[in-house]
C-alpha cells in the first residue's frame, strides 16, 4: 500500500500595527462605527492619491531581517486590478515584481522540541479592503437583499507572507504559524489576532507518494478562523485527498472552504477562476529606495527572536520544550525569567517557580508576574536559598505568598524571622527526643516492624521545629535513635 506524504504551503495576511493606514492619515484601529475612519484617499474619491506609510515599510524590513530575507535596494508598488465592491479603487495597491523582501526562512519547533525550517517565497506589502455586510437573515451574500460596506479597514497596511510548499503535516503548519505569530508580536509589528482578522491564512494542500519529489495537484483551503481550525482543516483535507486517490480518483485543483461545524472542506470555486489582474507599477507612487543605513540600524536593533530564545532555553538552560515555549509565548515573561536566572544561577528551579507557584498566583490575581511586586532578584534569592537548602520547600511556598503580598526580599524575611532550615544535629536532636517521648506507641509500632510510622514521626519533628529542621537530617537521626 502506498505511503502518502502531504505537502502544505501557507499564505498569511497580517495587518501591520501602525498609527495610520498604509496610504493615508486615517487611524489604523480595529472596530468603530462603520465608515468613521475614512478620508478621500481610502474611499478612493476622485482625485485622491496614495502616500506610502514609512513605518509600514520599516516593519516589513524588520520582518524580512528576522527571517533572514534579502532586502533589495529598490522596491515598487504595483496595482492589482479587479472589481470588488469593498475595494474602493477597484484595484489593490500591492507588490508584484519587486517586493520589499525576498526569500528567507521561518524556523519553528514542534511539541517534542525538534527545530524545523520552512523557506519563505516572499513577504510583500499591500493594503486591506473594506468589509461587506450582507443584509438579510443569513448574513451571507446569497439570499441577502442588499449589502452595506464598511471602509474603516480599507487601506490598513497588510503584509502577505507566502511560504514555500515545505510543510508536511498539520502539526508543522501550526508550528510554522505559531513561529510567525510569535515573531511578529516580538517585533511589535502586528497584534496577530485571528479573531479580529489581523491574521488571516489560506493553506495550499496536496499529497504525493512518499518517495516522490513532484508536487501533486493542490487545493487551496480558505475560511479558517483559528489555529485549531487550520489544524483540523488540513488533517481533513489530507484525509480527503488520500481517500480520493486510493479509490482511483484524481484531486482537482480548486478552492475549498473549511466548514467548522461539519468538520470538512467543501468546494467553493469548482474551477479555478482565471483572474487576469493586469499588474503594473502604480504610477501614483514612486519606487521605494531602501536606505542601507536604515536596514542596518533595524538589523542592529532586532530583539532576540523566538527561535533563538528557544535554542538558548533548550540548549544552555536545558528547559523542557513545554517550559521553553511557555516562556517564549510571552516575551516579557521570558525577560523576567532571564532576570531570575541571572540572579539565581539556576535555570530549572527558576522555571519551576516562574511557571509554577508564581504563574498560579499571577493567574489567580489576573496580573502579569512582571507587573507584580515580586522582583526577579527576590526570586533569585529564593531559588538560591532552596538550592543551598537554607530553606525547605514548605517555607519556600510561604515565602512566595508573602513576596506576592509585597513583603519584599525573601532573604531578609528568613533572616529576620529565623526561618533558615537547620541541619545542625545539636539543634535537631532535642526536637527528636521530645517527639519520641511524646509518642511511645508509635515508637513501639516501629520497633514491631510497622516502619510506615516513620513519616508521621518525622512530620511531628518538622512541626515542633516550625518547619526549620532539615527533613533529610531528621529522618537520618530518627532511624539511628530508633534503630
Amino acid at each position, binding site marked *: 500500500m502506498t505511503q502518502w506524504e502531504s505537502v502544505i504551503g501557507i499564505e498569511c495576511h497580517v495587518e501591520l500595527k501602525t498609527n495610520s493606514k498604509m496610504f493615508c492619515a486615517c487611524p489604523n484601529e480595529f472596530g468603530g462605527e462603520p465608515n468613521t475612519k475614512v478620508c478621500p484617499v481610502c474611499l478612493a474619491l476622485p*482625485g485622491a492619491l496614495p502616500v506610502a506609510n514609512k513605518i509600514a515599510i520599516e516593519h516589513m524590513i524588520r520582518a524580512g531581517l528576522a527571517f533572514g530575507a534579502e532586502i533589495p535596494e529598490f522596491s515598487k508598488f504595483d496595482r492589482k486590478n479587479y472589481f470588488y465592491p469593498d475595494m474602493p479603487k477597484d484595484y489593490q495597491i500591492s507588490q508584484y515584481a519587486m517586493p520589499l523582501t525576498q526569500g528567507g526562512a521561518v524556523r519553528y519547533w514542534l511539541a517534542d522540541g525538534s527545530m524545523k525550517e520552512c523557506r519563505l517565497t516572499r513577504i510583500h506589502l499591500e493594503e486591506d479592503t473594506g468589509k461587506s455586510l450582507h443584509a438579510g437573515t443569513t448574513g451571507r451574500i446569497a439570499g441577502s437583499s442588499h449589502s452595506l460596506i464598511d471602509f474603516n479597514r480599507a487601506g490598513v497596511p497588510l503584509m502577505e507572507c507566502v511560504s514555500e510548499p515545505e510543510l508536511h503535516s498539520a502539526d508543522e503548519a501550526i508550528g510554522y504559524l505559531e513561529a510567525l505569530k510569535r515573531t511578529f508580536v516580538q517585533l511589535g509589528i502586528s497584534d496577530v489576532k485571528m479573531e479580529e482578522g489581523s491574521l488571516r491564512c489560506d493553506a495550499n494542500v496536496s499529497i504525493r507518494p512518499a518517495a516522490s519529489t513532484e508536487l501533486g495537484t493542490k487545493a487551496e483551503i480558505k475560511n479558517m478562523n483559528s489555529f485549531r481550525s487550520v489544524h483540523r482543516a488540513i488533517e481533513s483535507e489530507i484525509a480527503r485527498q488520500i481517500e480520493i486517490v486510493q479509490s482511483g480518483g484524481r484531486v482537482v485543483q480548486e478552492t475549498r472552504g473549511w466548514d467548522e461545524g461539519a468538520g470538512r472542506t467543501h468546494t467553493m470555486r469548482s474551477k479555478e477562476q482565471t483572474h487576469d489582474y*493586469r499588474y503594473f507599477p502604480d504610477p501614483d507612487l514612486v519606487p521605494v529606495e531602501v536606505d542601507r543605513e536604515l536596514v542596518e540600524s533595524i538589523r542592529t536593533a532586532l530583539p532576540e527572536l523566538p527561535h533563538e530564545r528557544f535554542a538558548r532555553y533548550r540548549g544552555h538552560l536545558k528547559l523542557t520544550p513545554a517550559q521553553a515555549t511557555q516562556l517564549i509565548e510571552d516575551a516579557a515573561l521570558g525577560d523576567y525569567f532571564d532576570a531570575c536566572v541571572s540572579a539565581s544561577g539556576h535555570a530549572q528551579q527558576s522555571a519551576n517557580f516562574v511557571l509554577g507557584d508564581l504563574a498560579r498566583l499571577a493567574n489567580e490575581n489576573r496580573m502579569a508576574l512582571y507587573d507584580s511586586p515580586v522582583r526577579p532578584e527576590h526570586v533569585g534569592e529564593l531559588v538560591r536559598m532552596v538550592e543551598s537548602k537554607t530553606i525547605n520547600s514548605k517555607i519556600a511556598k510561604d515565602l512566595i505568598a508573602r513576596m506576592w503580598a509585597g513583603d519584599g526580599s525573601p532573604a531578609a524575611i528568613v533572616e529576620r524571622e529565623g526561618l533558615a532550615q537547620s541541619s545542625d544535629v545539636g539543634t535537631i536532636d532535642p526536637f527528636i527526643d521530645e517527639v519520641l517521648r511524646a509518642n511511645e506507641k508509635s515508637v513501639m509500632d516501629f520497633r514491631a516492624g510497622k516502619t510506615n510510622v516513620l513519616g508521621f514521626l518525622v512530620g511531628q519533628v518538622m512541626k515542633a521545629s516550625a518547619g526549620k529542621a532539615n527533613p533529610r537530617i531528621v529522618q537520618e537521626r530518627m532511624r539511628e535513635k530508633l534503630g
Partner: protein
Amino acid sequence: MRPVIEQSAAELARAVGAKEISARDVIEATLAQIDAVDGSVGAYITSLHEMARASALAVDRRIAAGEKMRLAGVPVAVKDNMCLAGTRTTCGSKILGDWIAPYTATAVQRIIEAGGIPVGKSNLDEFAMGSSCENSARGITRNPLALDRVPGGSSGGSAAAVASRQAVVGLGSDTGGSIREPAAFCGVTGFKPTYGRVSRYGLIAFASSLDQIGPLARTVEDAALIYEVMAGHDGMDSTSIDRDVEPAVTAMRSDLRGLRIGIVKEFDTGKLGHEIDALYKRAFADLRKLGADLVDVSLPTAEFGLATYYLIAPAECSSNLARFDGVRYGLRVDGADVGEMYERTRAAGFGPEVKRRILIGTYALSSGYYDAYYVKAQKVRTLIARDFQRAFEECDLIACPAASSPAFGFNAKSDPYSMYLMDYYTIPMSLAGLPALSVPCGSVTGEGAHEPLPMGLQLCGPLFSECALLGAAHAYEQASQHAKEYKLAI
C-alpha cells in the same frame, strides 16, 4: 484705465492689494461678462456666482486686515477635473452625476490662499481625453475667436474662458497636449510645467504618469505668476517633486541673447502646408532677431511618441477609471447583481472615447500582451526622453509648432486617429516629463474659415527649466505682440 476684464492678473492683484479696486468689483465685472457671453461660448459647465461673490468679500476682508496676496481678487477658471470643495465636479462625464467634491485640490487651494477666486468649473473632453472638447457629455464649448470652431482640448473650457475674458487666468491639465493645444487654438498662452512640479492631489486622474496641472493666461507673465503660486512639493502627492521653485515672474526677459534654440529636424513644418510653414519660419526668424542662435537638433524617436502615448495613457486610465463603479458616488444604474450594476453603470456613464481608451488600456495590460505593449511602450518612452537629453546638450530650448493646424470645425475629425494626430507635437514632451508652453505666434486662414485663426509656437526646455522657458516666451511675446491681432467673435 482699461476695463477690469481686460487687465492681467498681475495688474489686478496689485490694484486690489492697493485698494484701488475691490475684489468684489473685479468679480462682479467678471460675472457680468460670463452672463453676457457664456451663452454663446459655453466655457463653463458650472458657474460659481454665489461662491465667487462670497470669496470676493473674504478677499476684501483679508486686504482690509493688511494681508498681502499675490492673486488678490483674480478671477480663475478651474477645469472641471479638479476638486473644489462644495462644487459639482463632473470631468465632463455623466458617470459622476452631480457629485459634489468634499475637498479641494492642492493646486486650487494654493490659488485660493493667494487670493485667487474660482468663478467657474470649465468644460473639458470627458476625463481630459480629447483635443476639441467635443467629447464632453456636459455641452459644447465654442472657440471665442470663431464660434463655428472648437476651442481645442481637453482644457478647452479654460482656454475659451480666458480668451473671452470670462476669467483672467485658467487652470488646465496637460497629459499629452491638453493645455498647449487649446491655448494655441484660442490665442492664449498655455504652460505645462515639468511633471511633478504641481501637485496632482485633487486632479481627477486620466494618466497618472503624464498628468500635470498648469496655467492658461493672456500673458506669459500671468502664466508665470500662476505657476509660481501653484508649484512646489505637496505631501499629499508622492510624485510631486521636493525641490525649490525658482521665482519665475522675475525671470522675464526682453531678448534671447545667448540662448541656443533647437529646431527639430523631424518636425518639418513643410508638411503642414505653405501658409503654416511660412508662419513658423517667420516665428523662428523672430527668435533669431531677438538674439537666439538657432541650431538644428534631432529627435529620432519622437515620431513614435503618438503610438507610445496611446498605450501608456490608456493603460493607466483603464485602472484609474475603475473606481467609477456606481458603488460609492456618482451615477448608478441598478442591475440584478453587483456585476450587472457595474456593467450598466459604466455603459451608461462613460462616453465612446473613454470606453475606447479603457478597452485599449485593458488589452495592453493583459497577460500575454503586457510585455509586447505596455513594457515596450515604457522602453520607447525612455528612448524619447534620452533623445531630448541629447538634444539639450546642443541647445537650451526647443521651438516647434504647438499643433499641426489651427482650430477646426465641429465634427471635422470624425475618426479617432485624425484627432489623436492633433497632439503629434506635444506628446513627446509629455512622455519625457518636460516643461513646455504654447505662446501666440500669429494666425493663418484656416480651411473654410472666414477669419484668421490663431496659431501657437511651442517652446520646450529641459526638466525644471521653467524660468528659462517662461523668460524666453515673454521676450518673444513682447516683441511680436501677436495676441493683439486676435479678435473675439462675440
